């Protein structure tokens, strides 16, 4: 198994060529929250394009608005100014071809694993019979075979999050949005989940936007890593991760990998946001 995109050329972010193949484009988007104590500027103008089939990771200090950025793309909140479009269509409400993995698995405790995955289908008013096979296949891929009839509270944290990834993928969306999906997991489970996510992505070739606060996770998974500054959030740098795929977990020990993580970490040192 070799992947064509292993040798993908490095394209500079500012190159206008990008817009031609952009799947998600974010143009001059800002977000200002109204709170009791006044206005809070969450995002300064953000411009970003994500290619079709690209795995993009966003890292940044907590409170930098990276989760807000994801919610904007998901259509769960609206931008103060600027536009976001997916596949050429402006996002004003949650779009059709999007699946979201939240920080917590948010599985319904009164439904089995399979019912939780199929929730995506039922809530969208799609025909469950058509998607039953897809659900079963995803559960198998995610290593949840034999747990279809288990309830969420019978699963470990990693299994719950895998079920929620299946739920995000079952309706075969073009775009997968993930908001710090592995933040609550222990380091070892997290690495395992990263490897599995890479495999699932390689098989499905979705356009992925992953929000994370783990630099190694971002470098390991992504084609490009976007570094955000602290509030109000802006894009500070974008790194093309030119590591061959599929990437084994051992890639994390290689000099090239370490160089990427160090380069990215320097931004946080400069911002004074790294305290470990």
């Amino acid at each position, binding site marked *: 198994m070799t992947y064509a995109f292993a040798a993908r050329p490095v394209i500079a972010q500012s190159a206008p060529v990008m817009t031609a193949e952009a799947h998600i484009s974010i143009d001059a988007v800002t977000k200002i929250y109204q709170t009791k104590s006044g206005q809070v500027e969450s995002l300064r103008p953000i411009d970003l394009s994500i290619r079709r089939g690209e795995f993009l990771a966003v890292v940044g200090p907590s409170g930098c608005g990276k989760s807000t950025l994801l919610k904007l793309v998901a259509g769960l909140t609206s931008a103060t100014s600027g536009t976001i479009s997916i596949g050429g269509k402006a996002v004003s409400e*949650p779009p059709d071809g*999007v699946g979201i993995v939240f920080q917590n698995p948010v599985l319904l405790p*009164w439904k089995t694993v399979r019912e939780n995955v199929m929730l995506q289908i039922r809530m*969208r008013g799609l025909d469950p019979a058509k998607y039953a096979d897809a659900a079963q296949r995803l559960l198998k891929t995610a290593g949840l075979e034999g747990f279809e009839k288990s309830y969420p509270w019978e699963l470990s944290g990693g299994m719950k999050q895998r079920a929620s990834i299946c739920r995000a993928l079952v309706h075969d969306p073009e775009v997968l949005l993930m908001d710090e999906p592995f933040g609550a997991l222990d380091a070892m489970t997290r690495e395992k989940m990263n490897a599995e996510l890479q495999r699932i992505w390689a098989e499905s070739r979705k356009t992925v936007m992953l929000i994370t606060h783990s630099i190694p996770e971002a470098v390991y998974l992504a084609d490009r890593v976007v570094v955000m500054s602290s509030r109000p959030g802006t894009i500070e740098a974008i790194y093309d991760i030119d590591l061959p795929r599929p990437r084994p977990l051992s890639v994390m020990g290689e000099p090239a990998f370490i160089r990427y993580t160090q380069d990215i970490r320097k931004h946080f040192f400069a911002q004074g946001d790294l305290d470990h």
Partner: protein
Amino acid sequence: MTIAAGGDRQVQVRTTKMSVTNILARVATSEAVKPLLLILVILIGWDLAIRMFGIPAYLIPAPLDVVEQIVLQWPLLLRESLPTLYATLCGFALSALIGIPLALLIASSRLIESYLYPLLVFSQSIPKVAIAPLFVVWFGFGMLPKVIVAFLLGVFPVIVSTVLALKSIDAEMIDLARSMRSGPLRTFLQIRLPHAMPGIFGGLKVSITLAVVGAVVGEFVGSNSGIGYLLQIANGNFDLPLMFAALFVLSMMGVLLFWILDAIEGLLVPWHESRRRDLREGA
């Protein structure tokens, strides 16, 4: 060596002793026996206290007299408990049928909440015992005032619990529903309502015990049937054993209704944290 053998024998004796106490302990701590055991202890204490301090029967009857009265007056007690049960169930049904939709309204809109909720709290602070005679004046003798008092006592916990349960849903869960492009009705039926079920049942369980109290209060002030009426008659005749017997029947009614609700909850909400213990222990 002999010391060791002696030690062994001692251990053996201790283990057999342990197993007997183990069995006793297991029986004593089983869920069904625990409350019965406590009742037995209270009854013995009650009986002893009457004998030791020479408490006259017109102040506190002896437990055996009460038991005798329960057995002797069983047909009467059963007959009189039916109207009380009927009023309780009607009041409870009204509490659920009116309380839950009201709670839905309150939880769905800030505006409705700000108008309605303070008024409900205000009305709840009026002592129902004080206004119960008014219902007799308005609605006459009989079933209706009883049902109304049972309803007024029972509805408040249903509303408070349901509002709380509906409101305490994760923002992420609502985001999930929105991301699936689900309409408000589907979100309510698939996510909000099932999520609130344990809280709603919590309110219903408090409500049903209060509905029993409400029905009896209604019977106190204006009725010629029911356990409340019987209690008043017994009180007037200084028939304390009958009074205690009536109280016993009343308590049993409350316990029974509570258990039935609890069983229904177990069927409808088997997934809740409070019900998982058995499953975990089995695993």
